[in-house]
């Protein structure tokens, strides 16, 4: 190809994005990426959503990716543009969300000179991305872009960053088509049939089995969740989800035990503690799930299915390790189960279910809502009502959250029936995630009902994205459980630090109704229980973006709770239950 026939680097970049199936980019312009914005100006294939802060761009791309299964794309400038994106990138890394982040960079001849808006972006983001690239030659540009998409979506998905010096974007560059293979990065997707047979035999012999399912099954695509649901129903085994796994198994199914872990249900955690065989699929034995490791599932033989070999035997040694795509592994396991001639111990399983039902009878998520007009709203009740109203909607419903008590209450009380409908920051716990993530979901699903279940503290961390909602007429609903505290901080201070509420009270909160108004959205407020339903109804009926400010009981705590450093069977139930709250050890106190 002659140099004249070549396009500019920026044009090659856009062509590569288009060939990767990209239809939308979340971004914010700046000096170093002006050539890309110029190329965007001259085409219609790729839509650009102008965010208000680069962190918001990454969370929006995460929301887009998690709700569609596609790779989310971010475009930001050099220096502060890139550093502002770092939190989002690490969030995507921790939660295995496929994102490609394009960052501008100063021209190659200025790299290392402390040029204006220069940052060592690949250095800064190396531990915050799955992989990153600095493109130093125009000839590499197209190949690197295609490779980045391949790496982001293959194996355990994650964020990949491409740093693009300005001269590379301006100079001519050759185009090469997408690649489907890679010389070194070839994650194993096909599970080992021998291990599948061993796993099936172990499950057949189980007397007290539990299936523990995480976000890996979401990432494996909706078919994996369908296969999981069929397999769990076929076996008759109890199933629990991690925070990231919610929706992979229908919440309404009688075999569902709810979420497990620190704020998981009593029945899920005690079933884990009492299990004799544990089947973990696409879950990583996170510390929020395991509690004290030494006391985690003490009697269980463990089977672990994961696409990432480094997740296996990382914190919990397992008996059968199956590396592969969760969907293929579940299908293979179901086949091995059917072929295994051994009978299931139905009697033992029935006894196990009787025990689980006893734990269930504790009704660990119980709360008491005073229905007297003028009574204060319990946050759990607000979420339950929201769930009931949304179930009656014909629209597809997507929920995002911020981070804190409201997030845990949403996980506990909002039932998810399908995967990809629940977007939350699990691993990194990023306050400010929910609003921009909801924005990304709404861009991907313009006709869906997208709700950010928020806390008043978290939502302020990226509140500027209300401007983006207005600009693109994205009718996201922000449902704020306003308790005027950083509730989870306040709860820990109450339980662990002698109720010394150091800096966890938000004085001088904004008037969220006026704030909505200022951002061209609708503001609603419910102060008492009798106002709640009307506010939810009005919010759901509105064709616009809405902030619903729900004043909730500021002293409510999120239970059940496994205190730091405690085991699953040492969980604390709430004030609704006769509480034999165990003290938290000094060892536990140092854990977060």
């Amino acid at each position: 190809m002659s140099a004249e026939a070549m396009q500019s680097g920026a044009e090659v970049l856009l062509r590569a994005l288009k060939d990767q199936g990209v239809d939308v980019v979340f971004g914010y312009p700046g000096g170093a990426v002006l050539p890309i914005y110029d190329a965007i100006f001259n085409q219609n294939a790729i839509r650009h959503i102008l965010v208000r802060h680069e962190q918001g761009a990454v969370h929006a791309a995460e929301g887009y990716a998690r709700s569609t299964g596609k790779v989310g794309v971010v475009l930001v400038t050099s220096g502060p543009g890139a550093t502002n994106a770092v939190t989002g990138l690490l969030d995507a890394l921790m939660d295995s969300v496929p994102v490609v982040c394009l960052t501008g960079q100063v021209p190659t001849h200025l790299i290392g000179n402390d040029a204006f808006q220069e940052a060592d972006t690949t250095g800064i983001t190396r531990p915050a991305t799955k992989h990153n690239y600095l493109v130093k030659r125009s000839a590499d540009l197209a190949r690197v872009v295609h490779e980045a998409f391949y790496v982001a979506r293959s194996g355990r998905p994650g964020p990949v960053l491409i740093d693009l010096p300005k001269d590379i974007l301006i100079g001519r560059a050759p185009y090469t088509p997408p690649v489907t293979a890679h010389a070194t990065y070839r994650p194993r997707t096909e599970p080992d049939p021998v291990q599948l047979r061993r796993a099936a035999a172990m499950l057949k012999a189980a007397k007290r089995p539990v299936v523990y399912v995480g976000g890996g099954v979401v990432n494996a695509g909706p078919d994996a969740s369908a296969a999981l649901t069929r397999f769990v129903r076929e076996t008759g085994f109890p199933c629990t989800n991690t925070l990231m796994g919610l929706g992979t198994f229908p919440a309404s199914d009688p075999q569902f035990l709810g979420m497990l872990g620190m704020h998981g249900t009593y029945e899920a955690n005690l079933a884990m503690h009492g299990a004799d065989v544990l089947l973990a699929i696409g879950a990583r034995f996170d510390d929020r799930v395991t509690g004290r490791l030494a006391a985690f599932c003490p009697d269980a033989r463990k089977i672990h299915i994961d696409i990432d070999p480094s997740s296996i035997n990382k914190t919990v040694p397992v008996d059968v390790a199956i590396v592969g795509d969760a969907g293929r592994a579940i299908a293979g396991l179901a086949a091995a189960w059917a072929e295994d001639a051994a009978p299931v111990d139905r009697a033992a399983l029935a006894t196990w279910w009787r025990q689980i039902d006893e734990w269930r009878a504790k009704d660990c998520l119980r709360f008491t809502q005073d229905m007297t007009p003028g009574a204060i709203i319990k946050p759990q009740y607000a979420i339950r009502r929201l769930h009931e109203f949304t179930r009656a909607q014909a629209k597809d419903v997507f929920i995002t959250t911020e981070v804190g008590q409201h997030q845990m209450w949403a996980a506990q009380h909002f039932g998810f029936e399908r995967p990809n409908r629940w977007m939350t920051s699990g691993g990194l716990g990023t306050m400010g995630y929910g609003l921009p993530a909801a924005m990304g979901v709404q861009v991907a699903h313009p006709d869906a009902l997208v709700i950010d279940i928020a806390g008043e503290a978290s939502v302020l961390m990226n509140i500027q994205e209300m401007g983006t909602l207005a600009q693109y007429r994205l009718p996201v609903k922000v449902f704020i459980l306003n308790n005027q505290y950083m509730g989870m901080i306040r709860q820990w201070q109450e339980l662990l630090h002698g109720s010394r509420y150091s800096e966890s009270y938000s004085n001088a909160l904004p008037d969220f109704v006026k704030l909505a108004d200022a951002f061209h959205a609708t503001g609603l407020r419910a102060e008492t229980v009798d106002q709640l339903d009307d506010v939810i109804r009005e919010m759901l009926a509105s064709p616009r973006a809405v902030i619903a400010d729900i004043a909730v009981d500021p002293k409510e705590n999120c239970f059940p709770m496994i205190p730091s450093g405690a085991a699953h069977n040492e969980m604390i139930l709430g004030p609704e239950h006769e509480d034999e709250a165990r003290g938290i050890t000094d060892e536990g106190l140092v854990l977060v």
Partner: protein
Amino acid sequence: MPGPDNHQLRSATISVLVDNESGVLARVIGLFSGRGYNIDSLTVAPVDDARGQSRINVVTSGTEMVIEQIKAQLERLVPVHRVADLTREGAHVAREMALVKVLGTGDARVESLRIADSFRARVVDTTIESFVFELTGATDKLDAFIELMRPLGLAEVSRTGVAAIARGSRTI
């Protein structure tokens, strides 16, 4: 297959074949520092110009579980071609080279030369009051030599770190 023993510490010599691209060493080192793994020795150099590959040799220590984790973490780095746990995958040879500067005159100087001879160290630089010895061998041999030089005027040590390779016909 029971899970690996999580208490016994062991040393592991791990060789990593990587694409010789900028930042690749930072990825490997960052992995170790970021996840709190030990690096007892580290060497890196291009080994195949035609394929653009370098070899990194890392001597590390940890429980079996941690070492398995290190290997799994290394394997998922994109520019990594192959990770070999030489300590586990059969016999291997591991060598490093040291340049050892010893200052002295009189008996100490004679003694240092005598010891160097018995270690098959070569004298690569001499002045009236100094020697620079070059010594190649296993890490403990180098350690022993350096300890012996200490009372004889040891002034400075420069070591390469361990290069290692499997014995026999096996390749990485």
